[in-house]
């Protein structure tokens, strides 16, 4: 393992959050972007091929060392760590709308979902998945919401562009299949 890969490993281990490439690059100003990418590749390959309980994952706009899923049950049973509570379908619906239509106000979300979402927005705000990103033009200058870095991290997304584009979604343009 090269010394650059070791340095990156140490930094990723010390940090509790995903580290973007720019922050990793600042650790070793002499390293070129290509060298950095190679070192990250090397570290990931090292974890994958040498039988480690952790893996190197790119998500939430950065790199992070995560435990492998096969150990989750055991770790959780031993109460060493706990998975965050799953979001309800209604919460995910609200989140999906915010992710695609951001910045978006409450009224527009309610228009799409057909239900009141005030309480749901508060839950998502408390969990740090969305944030107020501005105010709309309309009456009363409604609050506008957008997704956060925590959202990307918790849904294993590198960036919003990893969500399918609206026109790539299968059902939007074709009629519902009759046999399901």
């Amino acid at each position, binding site marked *: 393992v090269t010394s650059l890969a070791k340095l990156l490993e140490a930094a990723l281990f010390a940090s509790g959050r995903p580290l973007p490439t720019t922050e990793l690059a600042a650790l070793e100003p002499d390293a070129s972007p290509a060298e950095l990418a190679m070192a990250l590749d090397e570290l990931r390959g090292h974890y994958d091929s040498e039988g480690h309980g952790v893996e190197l994952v790119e998500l939430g706009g950065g790199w992070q060392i995560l435990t492998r899923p096969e150990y989750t049950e055991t770790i959780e049973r031993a109460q060493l760590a706990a998975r965050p509570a799953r979001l309800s379908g209604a919460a*995910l619906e609200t989140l999906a709308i915010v992710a*695609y239509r951001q910045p978006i106000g409450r009224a527009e979300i309610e228009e799409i979902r057909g239900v009141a979402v*005030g309480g749901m927005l508060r839950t998502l705000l408390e969990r740090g998945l969305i944030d107020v990103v501005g105010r709309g033009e309309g009456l009363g200058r409604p609050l506008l919401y957008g997704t956060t870095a925590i959202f990307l991290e918790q849904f294993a997304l590198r960036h919003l562009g990893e969500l399918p584009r609206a026109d790539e979604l299968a059902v939007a343009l074709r009629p519902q299949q009759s046999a399901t």
Partner: protein
Amino acid sequence: VTATLASPESGTTPFVVELDHFSGPLDLLLTLIREEQVEIADIPIARICEQFLLRIHSLGLGEAAEYLEMAAGLLRIKVQMLLPRRGDEEEWDDPRAELVRRLLEYQQMREVVDILQHRGDERRDRFARGYLPQPAAAPQAPLTLSLPALLAAVDRVLRLAREPALHEVIARALDVEGAIATILSVLSLRSHAQWRDIVAADAAPWQVLSALLALLELARRNELRVAQPHPFANVEIMRDVASEAA
């Protein structure tokens, strides 16, 4: 099925209904359309409307405003469909068009929900470092504890609580006014200065603090500007040309 009275500030609809299976009237409608195996673009509105009313009645949703609103909307479309059509087929505005648009939009969003669900589950199965464990719950009474273990615990607590480390704080007057005078005199000679120009290398802590406060005070009064091009670089102190000109 959970129904909660939301707090007053939460929004316009105080009564929130959330079902285990349906996240709203559009979800229920979409489910019915699937069950009836009909096309969204050509909904047999009378049949679906009837099914919808039956279902919200059996689920006890007859008082949930959002479901009632949808039911009313379906009934209105049903009536509009019964009205005789005037003129050509082409001029006829399908009263279902808006509902179809909303259903397609909703269905598209549900597809994203599936993606988020899948990715979220994958991420949930991996732990990151930096997890802060919840404070341990107190053990249940009665405590089963051996005497040596208890004494060891008492010992640990006592050792932690031993001699508090005392530190005597002596108030030393800072000379901010003096430091301000120093900085201004340096800046009267040259437009740029650095931290080491205003504080001697062997300065005592009170002198460093005085200089720092003086610097911040002068920056606040817009009498100079302070900049640091990148972390750990030398701090540059500049005469504020703008305020001088004014």
